[in-house]
């Protein structure tokens, strides 16, 4: 069954066309990777799926778990099980990681008709998840991403994902900024989440991540469209040859 079905998606920003007909279907249980040159529209795709304001959808549709994704509010998408690990996580001074994640988890549980976790239950959960990602207590008490190093911010995204247990996780360059050990830890975290009901969309520039999170399908996004799809060997091929064959220098 398809978890997400993106059909002929076109999106513009400030009148500039960025996505120019993206077609992509991810079935439950699958991991897809998207690679592609800088500026191709990978992050734009992830923002459009998450519902960020400022993008105009000029054509196309997205069905997520049977629902029309594009008509949903940002928080409704999250409650429906969509999660975006940001390429550039946002700093929120004055709001602690714990408060933030508790509020998020309980909001999602509420829309699902589940009872909210109390402070103790939540603390237990977040501590266990943080431990899996080798994050200490001090980090979960700190203000969201404030003063975090690049790698710590990415780890924090992985922590949020582990706590919220999404159906579809979109990881936008979660590997960038991670050291070698952290990369393994975060990849293990992602792999723990893999399951027959879940799907993943992993955006990356580097084959290395895909050694740890082995994808079922690899896509090349260039110039606002998926221009090629293949198995995991496609990533190796791209690493060797680059994106020249996709004419990335071609004007839009």
């Amino acid at each position, binding site marked *: 069954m398809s978890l997400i079905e993106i059909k002929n998606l076109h999106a513009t920003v400030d009148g500039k066309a960025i996505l120019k007909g993206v077609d992509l279907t991810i079935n439950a249980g699958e991991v897809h990777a998207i690679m592609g040159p800088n500026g191709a529209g990978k992050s734009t795709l992830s923002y459009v799926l998450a519902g960020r304001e400022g993008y105009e959808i000029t054509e196309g549709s997205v069905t997520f778990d049977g629902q029309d994704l594009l008509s949903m509010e940002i*928080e409704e998408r999250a409650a429906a099980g969509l999660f*975006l690990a940001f390429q550039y996580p946002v700093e929120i001074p*004055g709001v602690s990681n714990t408060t933030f994640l508790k509020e998020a988890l309980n909001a999602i549980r509420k829309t699902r008709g589940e009872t909210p976790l109390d402070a103790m239950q939540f603390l237990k959960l977040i501590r266990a998840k943080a431990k899996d990602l080798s994050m200490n207590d001090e980090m979960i008490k700190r203000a969201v991403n404030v003063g975090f190093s690049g790698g710590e911010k990415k780890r924090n995204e992985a922590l949020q994902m582990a706590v919220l247990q999404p159906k579809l996780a979109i990881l936008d360059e979660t590997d960038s900024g991670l050291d070698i050990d952290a990369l393994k830890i975060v990849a293990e975290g992602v792999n723990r989440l893999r399951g027959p009901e879940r799907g993943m969309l992993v955006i990356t520039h580097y084959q290395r991540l895909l050694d740890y999170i082995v994808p079922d399908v690899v896509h090349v996004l260039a110039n606002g469209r998926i221009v090629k799809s293949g198995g995991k060997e496609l990533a190796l091929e791209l690493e060797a040859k680059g994106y020249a064959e996709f004419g990335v220098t071609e004007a839009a």
Partner: protein
Amino acid sequence: MRDEQNQTARNFVEQVVALAPALAGPRADGLDRFAKAGLPSTRAEAWKFTNLRGLDKLTLGPAPDAATVTVDAIPTALDTPAPRLVFVAGQYRADLSRVGDLPDGVVLTALTGETAPVAGDGPFRALNSALSSHGAALRVAAGVKLTSPVELVFIAATAGDKAALWNPRIIIEIADGAEATVVEHHVGANAGTYISNVVADVSVGIGARLHHYKLQAEGLDAWHLANVSTHLAQDAVYDTFVLNLGARLARHEARQVLDGTGIEARVSGAYAITGNQVSDITTLIDHAKPHCTSREVVKGVIDGAARAVFQGKIVVRPDAQKTDGYQLNRALLLSESAEINSKPELEIYADDVKCSHGATAGELDEDQMFYLRARGISRDAARVLLIGAFLDEALDEIIDETVRAHFRAQAEAWMGAR
């Protein structure tokens, strides 16, 4: 004498004079000064952002007899019962107050009848001087540390549709080496139109400490005009905070003179306003002697067509070398028609000082909103989180944890209600 052109609300002034009882001596002088000076118009520098013309539209009448008013709840910022004086419609209510069990050396008295005239400039001080008949005085003797905070509660009540005027007087004297905490509440949830013209005179002795907090949650048709004058002696610590939530127009004017070395003055505040409310926080921190520090953090949230005014003046006199002054003023604008007028003013006459100030005004951060919502937090809940975090930076200045938590809860209730 003030030029006629620089006055406003003459009708109001005349009504006040007409309704005043027969006065003699310094009280009559006060009324006379008030009548002559009139109310400042926006041409007066100190009032250029706050317009008192609306007072002219009021029809004044007497306050209701406090004894006839039923009070269902008395606000508190504490978890345990504490000494308190309660005033209803500007009048002392002994039956609601609690003054037993004070340690030796602590005198908490309700002022009733003729209160002593107050010194100082300005029409509202003159008015209070002339008409004040109720108030509170706390005197703590040298070396006495009052562990329980004292609460001063002013509950508004009106009768009929005429606007009542009351003039509470607050006197706080903390002698050398003594310590106390005072929490003022000014509330008027469902009261109609009234004017509360508060004058507070505070002195903190050598090495003494005073925590002085104020919650202003007057009714939305109220005018709250407060004038606080604080004298600080050598090595005193003064920790003061005002939270402005209520009133149609509230002006909290606080002047502190740092008249000794080694003083620490913490003069902060926060506000959250909406509709057509005006919140004005005007402060003067006067560094008269060397080696003192002052710290001022004022932050607020403005929604609807509300307007905030912050005027923060720091004076460093020629004598006041090694002064360390810090001032921060930030406003969060939640709507297009929300407005802030901010006027930081540094007047520095000494050369070896460290003074910094910063002022910003902005909206909620869109990226932060998106991030929170992308994790499933609703728009409203995300706003509450961000506004709360914004106000916390000011509320964190409150040293007393219980009071801080209570003020935080008041701010949260405001956010929840908007």
